[in-house]
């Protein structure tokens, strides 16, 4: 058997493997291209074209209304200088960083904690708590925003629960509150994915370590964490990407305020483009988001493609 290459002796050759070993010329079926056309046509038209257009748009001085809405010109240096000297932009970038980092840390910790507790919980507890967390994740961002606004404003649920009915958490710590809301709305996904990954860890590995007198912390650090790493990396990157684009939640809760306290990049970009009418400048800020998203996206592709 060993003399026949390319044939898996356990499962036998699959059709695609046989095709791969064909010695004649590769042939493409024309219908394959027909099948791909709608998807890639749409992606080119409404993803690649707008992205390319945004690069150009960001370097012009186009406005939403007024004379520059009709006669705009290409002024890259002016736009870049404006970005460099705009303190609101830098503060927005900083706020975005904190919001993303906070969301990632919160989601990973809460997701793991819940997933590992659920595994050992009594069944009815598992159903109720698991259900609540998943419902929080399923809730559309607009609804999550409303219900979080209601619960953290003066006289809301948290103020009542903590016995201080007049404290307005949303006004006192806006960035902290919206970050917690963001964690709340994304934990369910992390919990489900990590729960599946935890169930895939062979119990023999844990038992062997227990026999060797490994402490709980050692078992976590030496066995669970390394085996969970690919899953965790995927969750970190996806949470980062979703938090970066989480316009709706914050827009409903604070509209970026008070002041600029929760003005993350998508909100600032929207504000520049549609409230201050600087359409081109809004697009330029949007391009910064595209750059950040691309960095996350490239790492995401690298870990996902390994599983293809």
């Amino acid at each position, binding site marked *: 058997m060993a003399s026949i290459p390319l044939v898996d002796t356990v499962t036998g050759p699959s*059709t695609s493997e046989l095709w791969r070993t064909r010695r004649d010329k590769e042939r*493409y*079926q024309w219908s394959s291209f027909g099948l*791909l056309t709608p998807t890639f046509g*749409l992606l080119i038209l*409404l993803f690649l074209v707008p992205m390319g257009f945004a690069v150009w748009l960001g370097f012009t001085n186009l406005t939403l209304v007024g004379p520059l809405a009709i006669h705009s010109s290409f002024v890259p240096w002016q736009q870049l200088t404006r970005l460099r000297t705009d303190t609101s932009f830098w503060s927005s970038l900083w706020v975005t960083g904190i919001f993303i980092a906070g969301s990632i840390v919160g989601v990973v910790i809460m997701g793991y904690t819940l997933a590992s507790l659920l595994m050992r919980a009594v069944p009815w507890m598992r159903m109720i708590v698991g259900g609540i967390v998943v419902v929080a994740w399923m809730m*559309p961002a607009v609804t999550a925003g409303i219900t979080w606004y209601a619960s953290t404003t003066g006289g809301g649920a948290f103020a009542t629960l903590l016995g201080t009915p007049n404290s307005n958490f949303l006004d006192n710590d806006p960035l902290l509150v919206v970050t917690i809301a963001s964690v709340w709305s994304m934990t369910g996904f992390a919990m489900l994915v990590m729960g599946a990954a935890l169930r895939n860890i062979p119990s023999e590995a844990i038992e062997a370590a227990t026999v060797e007198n490994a402490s709980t912390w050692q078992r976590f650090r030496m066995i669970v964490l390394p085996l969970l790493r690919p899953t965790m990396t995927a969750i970190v990157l996806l949470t980062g990407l979703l938090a970066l684009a989480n316009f709706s939640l914050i827009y409903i809760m604070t509209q970026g305020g008070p002041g600029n306290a929760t003005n993350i990049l998508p909100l600032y970009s929207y504000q520049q483009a549609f409230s201050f009418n600087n359409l081109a400048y809004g697009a330029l800020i949007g391009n910064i988001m595209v750059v950040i998203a691309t960095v996350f996206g490239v790492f995401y592709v690298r870990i996902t*493609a390994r599983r293809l």
Partner: protein
Amino acid sequence: MSEMTDTNVGVPESTTTADAPVLPPENRPTQRTKVRSATLNLILGGLGVLFLAPMLWLFLASIDKNASWGVEWPHFSLINFRHVLTGSLLHSLWNSVILAVISTTIASVAGVFAAYSLSRRRIPFKGPLLLFIIFSSGVPLAILVIPVYEIFSKYGLLSILPTAVFLSVTSLPFEVYLMKNFIDAVPTDLEEAARMERASTFQVLRRVVIPLALPGIAAAAIFGFVNAWGSFVVPLILIGPQNQQPAPIAIYTFLTLPKAQFGNIAAYSLVFCIPVFILYTISSRLFREGFVLGGGVKG
């Protein structure tokens, strides 16, 4: 043909054994493990309460006729629901349905063709194309809304139908990725049998691949629907006419009214959530079914 499609798609034979949790070796619960388990359940319950707390307002205020932002025992009444299911608010929900159905249809039809082609066919630059699909499935395409706004406004497209097309593109890459994985799991034997009978590509897709990969296609379509249904910033920017605005914009408009109608906001938001909850529940069932697709071929 009918015999072929009838061959128990997704009827699990081994799920009961495969899904059963791996039980730890039977050992007598000692006092220590009992305390430990009680503590674990208590912590979990505490976390559950923390996750539930922000939701309470939504449920209580929706059935309270004098609701406020606070959480209080409701003066029970269904008047809020009766208020919000009329007139322009009902119309906004209808707009959401139109937006989501059109966008889901476009993404699912285009997606299933591409997924099949990427799964089965020999295609030049297949690797890079797949990487591009994965990349755009991770990156939220809604961040391109400003350039899309500029393009749409230039061609007078700031209305509900073009917006539905853009929303379909934002969910398309992930749908393709999901459906490709499901189609990969469908055995090729049935397709080859159909080819022997001189079935065309379209017939193979319609009669063999789509029925067999249906759980995956449905799961992808549900993802697309929920994505379009919950979208807020895209319709906010891209839909001009007031009477074409979907429900999320109506919820936001509620908040900007000078006199807040708390009960109505809660009731409307809850109604808006219900389709999402139902669809996600169906979707998780489909995922469980999807993994036993091998049942399509008797062997």
